[in-house]
């Protein structure tokens, strides 16, 4: 198993070396072009910008998550499922399970929370202490009719109280769910 991990690291090093070479070539080309267009400009004057370009065009990551939620609607998706779909779509590889958790927490949840604050997405949670956070497309106003229907059903069927609605109330839910998904 360790030998397999080493082989995987070697593959990644090989890919990154090739990527580094092509990026270095493009940077040299830009410097040369800059010198041709205006020789007075110092190429290093622009300083180093560590721009985020893992997801292609600006807004592509949010757009992909929105499409996933829209396609799944009216069903909800949990955070781990959304993160896995994003990783598959954008070709992201994670060396460790922890890296995946960081991606899920830092990137995916940030977008989901922003969408929720913009009232474009609703969040709920599966029952239980380690229930996964669920995200469903549609704002609160759009879903008012569905809420009324659920309320009517709950009145007629059982008096059991509803579960929590905010994922922040259980910040470890996605971690536990992700760990279980990884163990599988």
């Amino acid at each position, binding site marked *: 198993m360790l030998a397999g991990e080493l082989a995987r690291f070697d593959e990644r090093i090989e890919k990154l070396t090739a990527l580094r070479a092509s990026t270095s*070539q*493009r940077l*040299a*080309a*830009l410097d*040369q*072009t800059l010198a*041709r*267009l205006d020789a007075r400009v110092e190429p290093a004057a622009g300083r180093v910008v560590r721009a985020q370009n893992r997801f292609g065009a600006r807004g592509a990551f949010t757009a992909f998550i929105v499409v996933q939620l829209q396609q799944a609607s009216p069903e909800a998706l949990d955070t781990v499922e959304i993160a896995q779909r994003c990783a598959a779509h954008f070709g992201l590889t994670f060396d460790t399970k922890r890296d995946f958790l960081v991606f899920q927490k830092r990137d995916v949840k940030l977008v989901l929370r922003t969408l929720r604050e913009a009232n474009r997405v609703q969040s709920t949670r599966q029952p239980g202490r380690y229930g996964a956070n669920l995200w469903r497309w549609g704002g609160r106003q759009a879903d008012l009719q569905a809420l009324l229907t659920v309320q009517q059903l709950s009145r007629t069927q059982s008096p059991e109280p509803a579960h929590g609605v905010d994922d922040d109330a259980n910040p470890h839910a996605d971690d536990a769910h992700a760990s279980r998904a990884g163990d599988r």
Partner: protein
Amino acid sequence: MTRTRTQTTLTRLAQATAEVHAELALTEALTSLLPDSYPQLAARRQHLLLERDALYLTLRQFDEEIDGQLIGQSWRWLRRGGCRTRRACFAAYLADIGVTFPTAVSFQRTWLSVRALVSSRT
């Protein structure tokens, strides 16, 4: 970068590419006309080829779908020296890259051979 600035940059890059294309065409024509000046022309040509490849890569950095090879030629670069006529500009350019002529007649003959190319508006 805003759309306006991107468009301005792309225009400048396309103009620079068109100028390199034109100068490459000129050096190619001169290489066959002036075999004695082959070293100077070959050196210039090598420099231009590197610049052309760099421009292609730069264009692709801004827009993946742009094919630099489809850009035509522009002779605006030849008039930058402040010369009054194309012939004078051509002479200044040749002096710049180190190509010399033993007689005025040989220069005139060369100029007549490339005049149509330099005056083209492709």
